[in-house]
């Protein structure tokens, strides 16, 4: 009897330790990735990396200034497309809609959110590249913007719903209309959450490569305006990593470090903004 109990306790202790080991393995991957990138990329980051164009094939040196600018342009335009639609769509779901419409919209948003990013790329190609006959910054932004819509929409809705009903009723009782209640009371009460949602959506698409492969394509030079193919950091990492040149590998490490650093920083900032707020749900 006691032997059996001891055995059961032993099993319990062992299995619980194993779960701890699992958690340790999972978390350590993050530090391995970070450490490896810092180790390999840290030495390759220099002023040239941020200011110079890629060197011609066969020459060493050069940088990724055009890719950094390209990524910034892509993200700017994607935000301008994705955030307003997602945000106001979320406002509609939380404040105006009946359950039938809300269900359909939510379902479509989840479908869009769950679609593999390469499929979004195909769609953007079919709509924004094929008819015009050329790759462009616009098409790349369109693909990334599409991916931002469902994330922004669902999170906006969630954070607006978390605003207590009493706030709305108080405002309405003072004679404010529905729209002014939403604009002056509900949205300010939820703005931290919404800001977080937008930042996270931005961080999510900032590293996307697959939708850019056949929309923004790539470019070894500057891409003036919005109508030409453009380089971007993720696509640069992809092509440089698979290239046979040692010097390109070095730059890919640097680009990986910059990209990951930015994405993790945005995630941490978003978390800080959220944790300073009060009446917001965990996302």
């Amino acid at each position: 009897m006691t032997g059996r109990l001891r055995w059961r306790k032993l099993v319990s202790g062992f299995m619980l330790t194993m779960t701890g080991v699992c958690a340790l393995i999972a978390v350590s991957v993050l530090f391995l990735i970070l450490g490896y990138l810092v180790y390999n990329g840290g030495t390759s980051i220099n002023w040239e990396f941020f200011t110079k164009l890629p060197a011609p094939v066969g020459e060493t040196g050069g940088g990724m200034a055009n890719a950094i600018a390209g990524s910034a342009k892509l993200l700017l335009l994607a935000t301008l497309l994705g955030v307003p639609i997602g945000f106001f769509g979320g406002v509609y779901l939380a404040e105006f809609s009946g359950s039938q419409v809300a269900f359909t919209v939510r379902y479509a948003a989840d479908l869009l959110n769950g679609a593999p990013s390469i499929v979004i790329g195909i769609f953007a190609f079919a709509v924004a590249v094929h008819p015009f006959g050329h790759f462009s910054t616009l098409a790349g932004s369109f693909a990334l913007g599409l991916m931002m819509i469902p994330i922004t929409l669902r999170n906006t809705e969630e954070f607006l719903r978390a605003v207590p009903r009493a706030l709305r009723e108080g405002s309405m009782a003072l004679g404010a209309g529905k729209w002014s209640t939403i604009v002056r009371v509900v949205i300010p009460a939820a703005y931290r959450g919404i800001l977080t949602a937008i930042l996270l959506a931005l961080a999510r698409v900032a590293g996307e490569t697959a939708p850019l492969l056949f929309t923004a394509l790539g470019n070894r030079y500057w891409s003036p305006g919005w109508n030409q193919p453009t380089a971007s950091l993720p696509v640069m990492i992809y092509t440089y990593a698979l290239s046979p040149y040692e010097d390109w590998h070095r730059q890919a490490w640097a680009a990986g470090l910059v990209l990951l650093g930015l994405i993790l920083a945005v995630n941490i900032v978003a978390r800080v903004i959220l944790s300073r707020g009060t009446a917001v749900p965990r996302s």
Partner: protein
Amino acid sequence: MASRSFVSRLREGDEIARLATFLCAASVVLITVLLVFELWRQSALPRHKFGFSFFLTRVWDPIAEQFGALPFIYGTLVTAAVALIIAVPLGIGAAIFLAELAPLRLSDPLQFLIDLLAAVPSVIYGFLGFFVVVPLMREWIEPALKKSLGFLPLFQGPAYGVGFLTAGMVLAIMVIPYIISVSREVLLSVPRDQREAALALGATRWESTWKVVVPFARAGIMGSIFLALARALGETMAVTMVIGNTPTISASLFSSGYSIAAVIANEFTEATGDLYLQSLIELGLVLFLLTFILNGLARLMMLLTTRRGTGMGNA
């Protein structure tokens, strides 16, 4: 009169706001419908030419204009299966630790790190996979597997480093955060009395967790697995960089292969001729439908758990 018209004008303002926000919400539905429609319309040629045999043919020959999706479907399924075999035990183990054992002080920061892991772009996973995991597999893991389990057809053949097994490994690392996050959430929602009742009956901590809490959350955990599977099937960059990119069907996991997403990524811009391009788009459609079904199942499973959880709580 004046005040009434003022009020009614305000109401009109509300109506305009309602309409404007509705248009935004409706555009999401429109985009999704358009997405499916475009994929369907733009894949008409291969659908008519090959019909169902598209999925059963092994030949992928752009020059002869013969397109069969079987090697890609095979590669996608095999890599996803390998990924789940590795990721599910690890992910659920870690989720149990985070939800059941670790105090909130430890659990929340750890969960934050896991969330950060989920935010790492897939191209970075592919990059590290290519430079770290591939050599590791070639020099150590694959030879070791061959030595110990070489009698199985799974672990035979030359070890190149790139291939199904490596792609599965990298995918596993990528989907573990999803399994952990969702499973932890589901485990945390299991009512406290379930645990206490088990412990009061003399169960050890592990027995209460494994025989009471986990079965209670079973549907939700299944949901997290479907979610991970959907991610693994649709993952592009990381797989493209480590799978080897040759359309082969082989019992050996060491063999290099190809996946649906990878072939689209590699060949889309080089596709000459409408039939070639549209065959790739049809592959995209297949991928979309697969993830659509899996995501639906995942949501259903998670809904089941939370329903049941609250139902029990009220009783």
